């Protein structure tokens, strides 16, 4: 019998960058096949090609032995083939009832003009019963728990005759007990011959629920293993992280000074455990972890963008009030947000106005000199080599790298002391990336300190003096970038016991 799904030699590039290289992936009927990989390894690209969200450049997809016409592949045709994706953010309509969501395509009208509420409830009840889900079809979706919404999505997919269900981090937002229920459900639908592609960072779960596991790294399939008692999690971690030689550390002659900044038991909304750390003068302290590890949330709480539940922040021995960004800035903090377009810049304002904004907010005087303001921004434009027509150009027309430099200039102009950088080089080309690294090094070279948050392991290994690993809101390790490697970092990111990783690495 033909395999349920065969993807062969899938190739995909974005803007000349090859994201997937000849990736093979297959799925048997009644199988749970886990898909693993670091951030940017190509997992979601592969999934989006299968679900019709992206087109592919080369390769072949067979569903149930039949070739899919990729030129006409779309989210609608994927659904028609029986490919359903359960996303982390749900596709349900919260204000409608469970029954309405299940029957959303036609409201059970059977082609007639009027909604048949009775038929709809009956149909919904059947769909729910089919997977043993005990939810009242008349309940509004917004009143359901997250785990129930997730299961409802599965019920809807099955009701639409899905044969292949893709689950993207299904346990990220649900409790231990709800995870057990989900696993029971997965076992149930597996027994009915449905194939499941299961994406997760939690290796323990994969050991429990998956039949096979495939690891992607840098857009390539680096191996498919059967999940059995012989499976070594250490080996999987190594496959995810790669064994390659460490990229060179950047040469930097900074002598680290005394303690410069300190975070005491900062409790971040949404995460249980408090975070504490300390950074020395002249130090680049790296914080890494996978997407969803709580790094950005920690940065926002540290800067006052979101209010921390408790905890203290000290810069150069003085306590900083981090209840609002404005008080955090007054205390010497600076913050470069992850989504620089949405929260870093005023797109419609000029380069000049953006650069001076923070300094202006920090100053006491109600008026300012337009001339001095222009001189200041002119200087930063030159020093940071920001490419623009002139200082009056709106920042919306700048490239990603130059936008990032504008934000950097903002904090330099405001004479910030401790700079928190959240993914400063994401989406930035190689040349500008080098410029940003140099700016960071210059910044700490003058006796200040940087917290560099990044999920790019190469970046933190090359740039930082000390490296913290965060997982589920906790710091799980403090590492010396000179003495660690990507597999070790990955093992802490994934929350695997470090001893087992060491054994595997030997």
């Amino acid at each position, binding site marked *: 019998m033909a395999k349920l799904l065969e993807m062969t030699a899938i190739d995909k590039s974005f803007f000349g960058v090859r994201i997937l290289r000849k990736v093979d992936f297959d799925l048997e009927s009644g199988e749970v096949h886990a898909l693993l990989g670091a951030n940017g390894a190509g997992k979601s690209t592969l999934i989006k090609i299968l679900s019709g969200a992206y087109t592919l450049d080369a390769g072949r997809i067979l569903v149930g032995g039949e070739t899919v016409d990729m030129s006409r592949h779309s989210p609608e045709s994927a659904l028609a083939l029986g490919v359903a994706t359960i996303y982390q953010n749900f596709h349900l309509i919260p204000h409608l009832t469970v029954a309405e969501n299940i029957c959303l395509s036609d409201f059970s009208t059977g082609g007639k003009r009027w909604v048949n509420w009775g038929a709809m409830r009956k149909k919904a009840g059947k769909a729910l019963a089919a997977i043993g889900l005990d939810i009242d079809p008349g309940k509004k979706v917004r009143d359901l728990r997250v785990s129930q919404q997730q299961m409802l999505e599965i019920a809807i997919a099955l009701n639409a005759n899905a044969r292949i269900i893709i689950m993207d981090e299904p346990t990220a937002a649900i409790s231990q007990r709800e995870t057990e229920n989900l696993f029971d459900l997965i076992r149930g639908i597996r027994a009915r011959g449905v194939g499941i592609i299961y994406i997760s960072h939690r290796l323990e779960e994969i050991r429990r629920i998956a039949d096979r596991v495939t690891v992607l790294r840098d857009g390539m399939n680096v191996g498919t293993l059967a999940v059995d008692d012989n499976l070594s999690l250490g080996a999987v971690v190594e496959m995810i992280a790669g064994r390659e030689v460490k990229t060179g550390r950047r040469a930097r002659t900074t002598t680290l000074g005394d303690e410069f900044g300190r975070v005491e038991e900062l409790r971040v909304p949404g995460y249980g455990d408090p975070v504490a750390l300390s950074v020395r003068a002249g130090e680049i302290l790296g914080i890494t972890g996978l997407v969803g590890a709580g790094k950005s949330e920690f940065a926002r709480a540290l800067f006052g963008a979101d209010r921390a539940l408790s905890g203290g922040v000290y810069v150069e021995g003085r306590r900083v009030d981090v209840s609002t960004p404005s008080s955090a800035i007054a205390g010497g903090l600076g913050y470069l947000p992850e989504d620089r377009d*949405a*929260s870093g810049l*005023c797109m*419609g304002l000029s380069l000049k*106005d953006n650069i001076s*904004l923070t300094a202006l*907010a920090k100053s006491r005087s109600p*008026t300012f000199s337009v001339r001095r303001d222009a001189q200041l921004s002119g200087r930063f434009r030159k020093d940071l080599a920001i490419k623009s027509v*002139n*200082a009056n150009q709106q920042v919306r027309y700048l490239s990603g790298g130059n936008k990032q430099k504008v934000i950097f200039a903002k904090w330099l102009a405001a004479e910030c002391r401790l700079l928190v950088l959240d993914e400063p080089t994401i989406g930035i080309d190689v040349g500008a990336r080098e410029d940003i690294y140099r700016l960071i090094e210059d910044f700490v070279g003058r006796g200040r300190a940087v917290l560099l948050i990044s999920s790019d392991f190469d970046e933190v290994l090359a740039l930082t003096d000390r490296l913290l690993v965060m997982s589920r809101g906790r710091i799980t390790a403090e590492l010396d970038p000179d003495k660690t490697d990507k597999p070790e970092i990955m093992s802490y990111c994934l929350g695997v016991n470090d001893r087992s990783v060491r054994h595997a690495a030997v």
Partner: protein
Amino acid sequence: MEQDNESKPSLGLMALGALRHQVVSITIVMLLLWVILWWMSPYFLTVNNILEITLQASVTAIMAAGVSFVIYAGMIDLSVGSIFAMAAVGGGLAYHWTAKAEFGTGASVLASLAVTIAIGAAAGILNGLGIVVFRIPAFVVTLGMMGIARGIGFIICGGVPIYGLPKAYTEIGQGKLGPIPIPTVITLILFVAFYFVLRNTRFGRFTYAIGSNAEASRLSGIKVNFMIPMIFLICGACAALSSIIEAARLGTMQPAGGNGYELQAIGSVFIGGASISGGEGHIFGTLIGALLVTTIRNGLNIYGVSAFWQLVANGLIIIFAVAADQIRKRR
């Protein structure tokens, strides 16, 4: 070349650059309109009629100056017409109360002016607080205030218009400084002052920044929750000031006054080139916008077009001004 741009941010050049896009084009439109009207009626382009237009435009212009701040900050204020009436009536009552106490006419007039401005400012602050405390859109809060202020205006005077203002008061609207009407002078002073505020003060820069991206502004250390009530304070105070001009011109305060004025004020700001999404706009654009709205009204008056059609024209102007902005953005 680039060097020159940086090292010489000459005031004239920069002012020209800012004016180039919106204000100049709208000024040209207005001058064209004047020429057309002059061609149709030689009476139109006389010094007297132009001064008359600036006088008529002053009420709209002053109200629009305040609304400009709100729109530059990316919000809207629908309540200015109602605040206009409430503040005027409050000031009128204050005049008659203090006049009874016989502190002298001058003192009573000053008290009346102070009360009017204070009522406008207070209503504005309440608008702003409503927005930041309850986190609801300005559109909703000011729509509510539109009803509240209108109602309070009627309640405090029992629905009866206030008359009997002394010459010291009416002179504000009817007097002249040489050949120039006093309201025109007040309008000019206000706009020059606001030009300075928007360009050379933190408050002005932050107004644009909030309009461009409120979250980025907050993360840059701007106290957005303080700024918004202050922006609405200016807007409310300007509505009150414009009501003083009108009361002085007409010699009466009407609880039903200012009806539909928000339409003209908001229209003036958009005609002046402000962006509906905030962050852009030039205060002199608003001034020209107010003149243009008034010119159209004045022209329609000369040709005997009914006031009802003038309302229609006002509504159309707003829609077309914003549509022009959207088309400019799409380009």
